[in-house]
């Protein structure tokens, strides 16, 4: 199965990248390396993709009503504002996905299965 892990927030509510010390930033980055290593050690798991995202201030929302395109500055909702990045992970089941994403210790992760039924 494919799972997306949205890094929706930090487990430490007082932490932010902008105010973190260099050592803290390195520790955060290191968790991504640990994640990559942990996944590579499992034959049944693969990282299919993943990116860091710029913050919600740089978001643009595109809407179309009656063929007319309108743009709105800012993220679609407060919930999406905090998403700092995502991974697309191949894993045999939710337990394996949880085990892998739990290596990313700094983050609250929302795990969502990809809907295979609409593929191809």
């Amino acid at each position, binding site marked *: *199965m494919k799972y997306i892990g949205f890094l929706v927030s930090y487990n430490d509510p007082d932490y932010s990248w902008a105010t973190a010390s260099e050592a803290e930033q390195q520790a955060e980055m290191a968790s991504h390396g640990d994640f990559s290593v942990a996944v590579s050690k499992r034959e049944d798991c693969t990282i299919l993709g993943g990116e860091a995202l710029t913050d919600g201030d740089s978001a643009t929302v595109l809407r179309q009503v009656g063929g007319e395109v309108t743009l709105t500055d800012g993220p679609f909702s407060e919930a999406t504002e905090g998403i700092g990045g995502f991974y697309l992970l191949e*894993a045999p*089941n*939710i*337990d394996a*996905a949880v085990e892998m994403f739990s290596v990313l210790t700094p983050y609250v992760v929302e*795990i969502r*299965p990809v809907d*295979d*039924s609409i593929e191809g």
Partner: protein
Amino acid sequence: MTDRASAAVEQAWQQEWGRLLGLLVGRFRDVDLAEDALADAFEAATRTWPTDGVPSNPAAWLLTTARRRALDKLRGADTARRKLPLLVVDHLREEERGEVDIDDVGDDELKLLFLACHPALAPESQAALALRLVLGIPTAEIARLFLVTEPTMAARITRAKKKIATAGLPFAMPDDGALGDRVEVAAQAIYLCFTAGYAPGFGDAVVRADLAGEAIRLARLLVRLLERRGERAPGVVALLALMMLQHSRRDARVSADGELVLLADQDRSAWHHDEISEGLALLASVPATTGRAEELRVQAVIAARHATAVHPDGTDWSAIAADYARLEQLTGSPVVRLNRAVAVAEADGPRAGLALLDGLDEVLPLSHRLPAVRGELLVRAGEVDAARAALQVAIERCQHEVELTYLRNRLASL
């Protein structure tokens, strides 16, 4: 239907549902298909056993019939109806298993319980699914037990089953490293069933005792299945002991007019003493431990001290007060402190109990039990006016009919 056939169907439902459903889910990887097929098999048993006689191995008959029904459904037009992906199962066992063998129980029943009690599901869904999948209790009955409408419960169960399939919750034994945590989650779901049965809330005491009884069946099953694998689960054994000791008092808790009877006033001959004996034996087998298992064990120790007092005056309140102090240390719970205050008042007098209530109002602002306890202790301390005021607050907050009647009577008696 003949009585014998009817009793055999009922007995098979009571004893075999979870085992048979586990085997079918493992084979067909589709909870809905397996449930439908098994329900069809029981329906066929209800029709044919009275005329054809009860088969020599009822469980094997039901399994064969259910498997055929499932295959028919898969071959037929029903296949198109599949809306959900197949369950994830352990691949090894899936390949091994061509046919379903009644004696090849393996861990399928345990896997079914772990699937129902997966931590990715909401606790109330876990509890409902465990009752439905493992004990075979119909949705209408589960709705009645949890005091919600049948459509509400049906929607809750459907949503949970959909998540099981779409989010890839596995039908598999947890890894050895995760087993302890998963057992604890299952124990929590079972305890949720039990406390929903006895929680002060709305509803009819008799219905609630039924739910507590089903929670005990689940805990007993979990202990048995883990022991068969050679796993020790002190937390689940402690939970089973706790529930049995508390549940043994069910017939004495409510009077013939439906009024709540306090522990001290209960007819102790109406307690189920065989269940108390079993609860005590279970408890004796659990060593002192740590964490959640220790919390359950200490709670069971307290229940055991009440259960073994032949007369209320013989209750060892000093020991119970010490148990609650330990439990408070483990949990940090204000509710435990409230219970501790009651025990300390019994052991050392009402003033000592009242002193322990200080500071609880901020953390339990909506509790009716806090002012009820305070009122009772104030009565005993001779402060009747302050007691009246506290009982009045308790009455304003209380929503449980039986308890409300008790509080009103208490206030009127002052």
